[in-house]
Structures are given as structure tokens and as C-alpha cells.
């Protein structure tokens, strides 16, 4: 077994196996499952990081069977970066969940809602983890579909672990959107297969899909994935679902789950379709810009802590789509029509955009966990109820603040570096519209992060009831926030792995 085979296997099947272990329904099986899942995912992603850095994109034919009949796992720099950030966030959230759901002694009381949440969080999350890693390592469309479906089912179930009617409804709505999105994707897959007779992403890329059938298929898959990624204007399901879920689930949903469908979108648009059409790229960028403005303004108008963060996710996802037009070689949006697409994709836009995705994953998970700590302490979620928690929970406050820096693109944070790169591309291409959006979005982000911090600092209204928060939960949030800050002073390795394969790994 080669290193690549070992590590891809670990990344996908480790968490899957761990999910089975965690289904055992005893405290020790939960702990063992989370430890096994975290361990295999971390080892797999780091192992692949080394392999891909050393030899470029790697391939694993499962059971020795290749395309078209067998299933292939395939990893390039983009896959590895996403795998790794998922593993880091996942490990921290796993740690966090062990304390968040209490001492796990209620596991046997299957009827009690709390016991149910404690019992099923770990298996659902580990299943979700396997599905996400499956997406990042898929080399064919159908494998993507199956992983995506598992991801959607597990994610919706995680939301409904919170027992309130609102969370239940939000989870149901999420499930419907997610399933419809998957169906649109599957229809797109069917059309592509009808036209080109292959499911392999690499062979499709070689066929350079064009024509009405290919365009229709891309449109269907894009709508489906955009709905799952909550791209404006298909974002309405996200805030209630992400805000209503239990804190560790919120962290996972906002930080890594939406990135799964984002990953598929990027792969389809660039690796498979070679950038598709200029108009399409501009449209995606425009929707991203609208998401930044709309999501930020709505975040400013929320009165409950977790909803601010959830709307912030809508806004921050917009940045990832601004990358689409900026990647194009001639600099779309500069006014001038670009000529035939040259193969020179912008490294700045690519590394900047993906760095923002990675930094959002780390920072958003940190912020949701920090917010979870604050609501855990005061048993309330409204902004006015968290008055004064900064003084009781300085570490969570710090984690929230550091995460906010990263979202706002202030140093030291990966967000700062990512925005610098995106700005560099936008300016050298003369795309002043994108420069303005990136800048305004950053200022709006500061405004809503500050709104939360100010409430947390407010001493006058602080209530007396504080439930002590387990230290482990505070550390988990802070460590992720520190990771986002560290990536802001040292991103060379990440930068270089993203160029392994780059935007179009198969061209």
C-alpha cells in the first residue's frame, strides 16, 4: 500500500468506522469514536499534505479498480487544504462536544431530549466527517453525489438535535433544501453522463464540456450547490438552521459543511468546465457581492448572538464567490471584454480566495464555540443577555475577538493575507468594483463583531446567574482562533500546497 493509499483510506474510512463505534451508545464508545475519527482524519490529512507536497496530486484506485467501473480517490492541493482544515476544526469540535453535552450519564435515558442529543451527536458528526472527506477526495461525479447526500442527511439531523420547535422546523427546511439541491445535482450528473458517457472529473475536463447540454447541466448543478452553500439569494434557510442547532453543530455547519458544496462548485466551474463562461463567472461574483452586503446588513440587525454569527456566514461566503470572476485571466469586470480564456489563472485570486475559505472555517468555528460558551453560561442567547460575560469568560471573549479579526481581515489573521491577495488581483486587473466590495464588507464585518463585543463587555446589565463553563470548551474555541491568527503570519506552506494542482488540476 502506498502512502497516498493509506492516507486517503484513513481520511474517508477512519471517521466512518468511528461513527459505527460511536453508535455503541456508551460513554466510552462515544469518546473512542471521536478519538478514532479525529485521529484518522488528522493523520490522513497530514499524511496527504506531505505526499502532495512531495509528488503533486495523488490517486488511489479503491480495490485496484479504476474508472469507469471502480471508484477512485484523488487528492490535489485544494483537497488536502480542505481536508486539513476540516480535520483541525473537527478535532477541536469533537473535544468541545465531550463537555458541551454534559457528563454523558444520561445516555441511557433515550427518551430525554438531552440524552438523545448527547447520544447521537458523535455518530452523526463522524458520519458527516466521512462524507465531507469523501467529497474532497472524490474523482467522479457519482461518488460526489453519494457523499453529498450523506453530508446533507447527517447535517440536517444535527440541527434537529436541538429540541425547540424552531430548530426542528429549521432542520426540516434545511433537509428539504438540501435534498432538492442534491436532486438538481443528480440531474446535472445524468445530463453530463448522457452527453459525454463518463463520470470521471478528469475525463470530463479533457472533453472540455461545451454546448447546450453541458451548459444546462452546469446550471442545474450550480443552483443545487448554491442552495446548499447558501449563496445569496438562496441563503434564507441558513440562519435559522445554523443559529438553532446545538453550539458544536452550529460550528460544524457554518465552518465546514457549507464548504463541501463550495468545493464542488469550484471543482466543477474551473477544473471541469475550465472557467465556463465569462458571464457566468461575473454572475457568481455579483451574487457573492450581494451576499456580502446583504448578509452583513442583516447581521447588524439581529438581536440574538448566534443569529449574528449565522448571518455573518452568509456574508463571508460571498467573499468565496468574489474569487470566481477574479480568477479569470484577463480580469473580468474591468470593463473591457476579455479575449479567449488563456490558461493563466490568477494565483493571487486562487490562493487568496481559498485562504479566506480556510480562515473562515477556523474563525467561524471558534466564534460559534465561543458564543456557545457564552450562552452556556447565561442559558440565554439574546445579545442583551450576554452582558458582562467578557469578564467571566475572558478566553471565550478573546476567541470571539480573534475570530472576528480574521473575518474582518485585520492582522494578524489569515483573513488579512487572503484579502491582501484578492485585492492585489482585483487592483492589477482594474476591478475597482470588487475592491470596493471587499473593503466595505470588511468594515461592515467590524461593525457587527464590535456590536457583539460591546454587549459582552457591558458591565452594568450583567446578571448574576452564571453557569461555570468547562475549561475544555474555552480552550477548544481559543485554539481554533489562534490557528486562524497563526495562519495569518505563516501561510507559505498552505500557499504552496494550493498551487499543487492549482485551479485546473487536469489541464
Amino acid at each position, binding site marked *: 500500500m502506498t502512502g497516498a493509499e493509506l492516507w486517503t483510506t484513513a481520511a474517508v474510512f477512519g471517521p466512518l468506522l468511528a461513527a459505527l463505534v460511536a453508535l455503541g451508545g456508551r460513554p466510552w464508545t462515544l469518546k473512542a469514536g471521536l478519538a478514532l475519527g479525529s485521529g484518522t482524519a488528522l493523520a490522513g490529512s497530514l499524511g496527504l499534505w506531505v505526499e502532495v507536497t512531495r509528488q503533486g496530486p495523488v490517486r488511489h484506485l479503491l480495490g485496484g479498480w479504476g474508472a469507469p467501473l471502480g471508484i477512485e480517490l484523488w487528492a490535489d492541493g485544494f483537497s488536502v487544504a480542505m481536508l486539513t482544515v476540516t480535520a483541525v476544526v473537527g478535532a477541536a469540535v469533537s473535544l468541545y462536544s465531550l463537555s458541551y453535552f454534559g457528563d454523558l450519564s444520561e445516555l441511557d435515558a433515550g427518551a430525554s431530549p438531552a440524552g438523545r442529543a448527547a447520544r447521537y451527536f458523535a455518530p452523526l458528526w463522524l458520519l458527516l466527517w466521512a462524507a465531507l472527506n469523501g467529497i474532497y477526495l472524490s474523482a467522479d461525479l457519482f461518488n460526489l453525489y453519494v457523499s453529498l447526500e450523506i453530508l446533507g442527511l447527517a447535517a440536517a439531523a444535527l440541527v434537529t438535535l*436541538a429540541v425547540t420547535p424552531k430548530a426542528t422546523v429549521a432542520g426540516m427546511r434545511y433537509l428539504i433544501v438540501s435534498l432538492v439541491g442534491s436532486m438538481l445535482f443528480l440531474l446535472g450528473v445524468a445530463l453530463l453522463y448522457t452527453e459525454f458517457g463518463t463520470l470521471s472529473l478528469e475525463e470530463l475536463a479533457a472533453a472540455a464540456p461545451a454546448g447546450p447540454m453541458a451548459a444546462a447541466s452546469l446550471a442545474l448543478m450550480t443552483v443545487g450547490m448554491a442552495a446548499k452553500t447558501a449563496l445569496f439569494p438562496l441563503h434564507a434557510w441558513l440562519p435559522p438552521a445554523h443559529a438553532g442547532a446545538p453550539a458544536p453543530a452550529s460550528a460544524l455547519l457554518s465552518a465546514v459543511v457549507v464548504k463541501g458544496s463550495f468545493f464542488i462548485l469550484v471543482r466543477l466551474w474551473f477544473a471541469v468546465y475550465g472557467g465556463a463562461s465569462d458571464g457566468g463567472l461575473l454572475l457568481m461574483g455579483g451574487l457573492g457581492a450581494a451576499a456580502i452586503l446583504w448578509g452583513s446588513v442583516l447581521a447588524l440587525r439581529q438581536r440574538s448572538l448566534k443569529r449574528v454569527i449565522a448571518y455573518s456566514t452568509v456574508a463571508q461566503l460571498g467573499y468565496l464567490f468574489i474569487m470566481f470572476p477574479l480568477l479569470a485571466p484577463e480580469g473580468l469586470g474591468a470593463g473591457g471584454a476579455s479575449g479567449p480564456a488563456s490558461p493563466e489563472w490568477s494565483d493571487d485570486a486562487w490562493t487568496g480566495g481559498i485562504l479566506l475559505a480556510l480562515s473562515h472555517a477556523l474563525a467561524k468555528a471558534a466564534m460559534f464555540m465561543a458564543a456557545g460558551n457564552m450562552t452556556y453560561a447565561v442559558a440565554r442567547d439574546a445579545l442583551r443577555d450576554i452582558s458582562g460575560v467578557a469578564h467571566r469568560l475572558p478566553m471565550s471573549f478573546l476567541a470571539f475577538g480573534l475570530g472576528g479579526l480574521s473575518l474582518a481581515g485585520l492582522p494578524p489573521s489569515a483573513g488579512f493575507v487572503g484579502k491582501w491577495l484578492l485585492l492585489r488581483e482585483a487592483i492589477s486587473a482594474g476591478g475597482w468594483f470588487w475592491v470596493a466590495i471587499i473593503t466595505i464588507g470588511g468594515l461592515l464585518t467590524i461593525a457587527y463583531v464590535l456590536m457583539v463585543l460591546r454587549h459582552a463587555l457591558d458591565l452594568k446589565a450583567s446578571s448574576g446567574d452564571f453557569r461555570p463553563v468547562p475549561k475544555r470548551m474555552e480552550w477548544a474555541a481559543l485554539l481554533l482562533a489562534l490557528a486562524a491568527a497563526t495562519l495569518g503570519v505563516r501561510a507559505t506552506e498552505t500557499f504552496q500546497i494550493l498551487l499543487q494542482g492549482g485551479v485546473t488540476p487536469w489541464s
Partner: protein
Amino acid sequence: MTPLDLYAWAGVAVFLLALHAVVTRAHLIWKVLGINLMGTGVFLILLAAPARRDPLVADPLPQGMVLTGIVVAVAATALALGMALRVMSRTGSPFLTVDPESADPDPDAPEPPS
């Protein structure tokens, strides 16, 4: 038009009808069944797929996809029905009536289980 084309067009029709139902019908059972039917529409298209290129050569891949797809659809439908039941028991309504956007700040914010 070959019989296989008929499959494909029937698939498209089923998909669109089902999508229409999912979007317009408020009752959760309608929505869940609609999603299930959307999948069925895609399966029909997949079965007809090889015809576009060479109708005389048997292609095992679509069969495999459809079989897998059915398994996934069963699982998804089961979960969706289960969640629909839970919605009904927690809100007393088979519709998505509780507007998650409403009543903010939340008086019964999700209290972490202890």
C-alpha cells in the same frame, strides 16, 4: 424518437412535476414524496443515457448508479419522513408554520442540555 428517448423525456417530465409539487405544496408529506419522485425522474434519464451514444451496447454504469441512487433515496426519504413526524409532534402542524425568522430575540433560546 426511440423508446429510450421516451424514457428520458418522461424522466424530465416526472422531475419537473415533482419539483413543482415540492415548491408549491406546503404539506410536508407532499414535499417528501415530491423529492422522492424527483429522484425517480433522474433515474429514468440515467437509464436512457447510453442511447445517446450507442443504443446497442449495454452500459452497466447507469444500472449501478440507479441501484445506488435508489438506496440513497430510500434512506433520505426515511429520514425526511421521520423528521416530518417530529415536526408534527413538536409543532402540532404538518406544515412549516413556525417561522424561524420570527420572534427575535428568542424567548426560549436553545438551552444547552446539561
